[in-house]
């Protein structure tokens, strides 16, 4: 993958520096970000250095001090904005019960419901392009938390990841299933292929997962995010299956979503009980962060849904 298209003067300068002159990454010499898009694509690219990197960026820039400082500045801004949206606070009580109720009580717009009942084929393809940014590295940011957890939550997380990663069979690896679904439906399956097409809301959704995954101090938020992701997957996946079937789309992509109906019904139990529950038994001080991560997962999905539904429902 090559660096994405810049979305303003800030990302333009940063990307040029990443290609040719990392000394220019010093924040004081860079222009201000022009927009949320300009800021989000820059942070996304800096995070990407820790995932698969770019063909036009030297590999050793992953740990270049100026790149890390710039990333840190952008992360502070992102984390502060995410925390400022979380005003309700964490519930109390039995963790699993409180967590499932917290997720159930969250009311947001549903892209899956729209796909089930009224989306056109073009709108579904649009959504799949958006989803491809994460689904082609599904579970990867959560994997960063493994060495940061104590015995019981670590065992739970690895158990879940083992299933996500195909239990040893590359053909069953979830992001590979999604890649095959994309190809069968006529979309590009290369990692990051559609990053230039996605709005800031999708970039931020991905950036939040990298933020939580890369920082040990945010391990509670990382696991809360994972648990909320799993706990909001089965029923929406079922709606996606119904919508894709309604439109007569390819069976491979339908298979990807139908796999998630039953797989995530098991994963949500593991994520809530064996990962987050076990984590909080050991580190009760992380209670609020687990809920912060869960809230952020659902809040960012709402923002993606608002953006897409707004765009699709604009009068022609």
């Amino acid at each position: 993958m090559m660096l994405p298209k810049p979305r303003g003067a800030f990302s333009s300068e940063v990307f040029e520096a990443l290609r040719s002159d990392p000394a220019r990454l010093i924040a004081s010499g860079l222009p201000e970000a022009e927009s949320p898009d300009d800021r989000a694509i820059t942070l996304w690219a800096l995070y990407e250095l820790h995932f698969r990197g770019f063909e036009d960026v030297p590999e050793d820039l992953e740990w270049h001090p100026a790149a890390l400082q710039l990333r840190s500045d952008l992360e502070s801004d992102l984390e502060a904005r995410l925390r400022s949206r979380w005003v309700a606070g964490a519930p109390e009580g039995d963790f699993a019960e409180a967590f499932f109720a917290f997720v159930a009580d969250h009311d947001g717009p549903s892209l899956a419901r729209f796909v089930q009942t009224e989306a056109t084929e073009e709108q579904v393809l649009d959504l799949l392009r958006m989803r491809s940014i994460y689904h082609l590295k599904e579970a990867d940011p959560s994997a960063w938390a493994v060495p940061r957890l104590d015995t019981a939550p670590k065992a739970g997380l690895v158990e879940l990841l083992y299933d996500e990663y195909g239990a040893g069979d590359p053909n069953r690896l979830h992001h590979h299933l999604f890649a095959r679904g994309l190809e069968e439906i006529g979309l590009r399956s290369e990692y990051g292929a559609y990053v230039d097409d996605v709005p800031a809301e999708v970039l931020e959704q991905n950036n939040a997962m990298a933020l939580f995954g890369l920082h040990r101090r945010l391990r509670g938020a990382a696991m809360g995010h994972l648990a909320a992701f799993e706990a909001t997957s089965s029923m929406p996946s079922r709606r996606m299956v119904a919508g894709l079937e309604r439109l007569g789309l390819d069976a491979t992509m339908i298979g990807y979503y139908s796999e998630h109906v039953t797989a995530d019904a098991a994963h949500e139990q593991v994520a809530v009980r064996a990962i987050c529950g076990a984590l909080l038994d050991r580190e009760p001080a992380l209670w609020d962060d687990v809920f912060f991560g869960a809230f952020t997962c659902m809040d960012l999905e709402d923002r993606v849904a608002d953006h897409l539904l707004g765009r699709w429902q604009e009068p022609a």
Partner: protein
Amino acid sequence: MTAPEFDHADIEICPGGPLLLRGDHVVRDAEGRSHQTTGPLSAVCRCGKSAAAPWCDGTHKLLPADKRP
């Protein structure tokens, strides 16, 4: 104790939710048909409302609390 023996089960009843299975199992449904698990983690419906029976599809979450298993 710093390295305790953990309480861990292969088959776990999730309060209000499914039966969580770890490992390979064959599950016989109410009509007598057998279903092989397909991955390391599976959830068997306990509420009787799943559209993917015998597997859980999360439908229990739509039921009132007193109707959940």
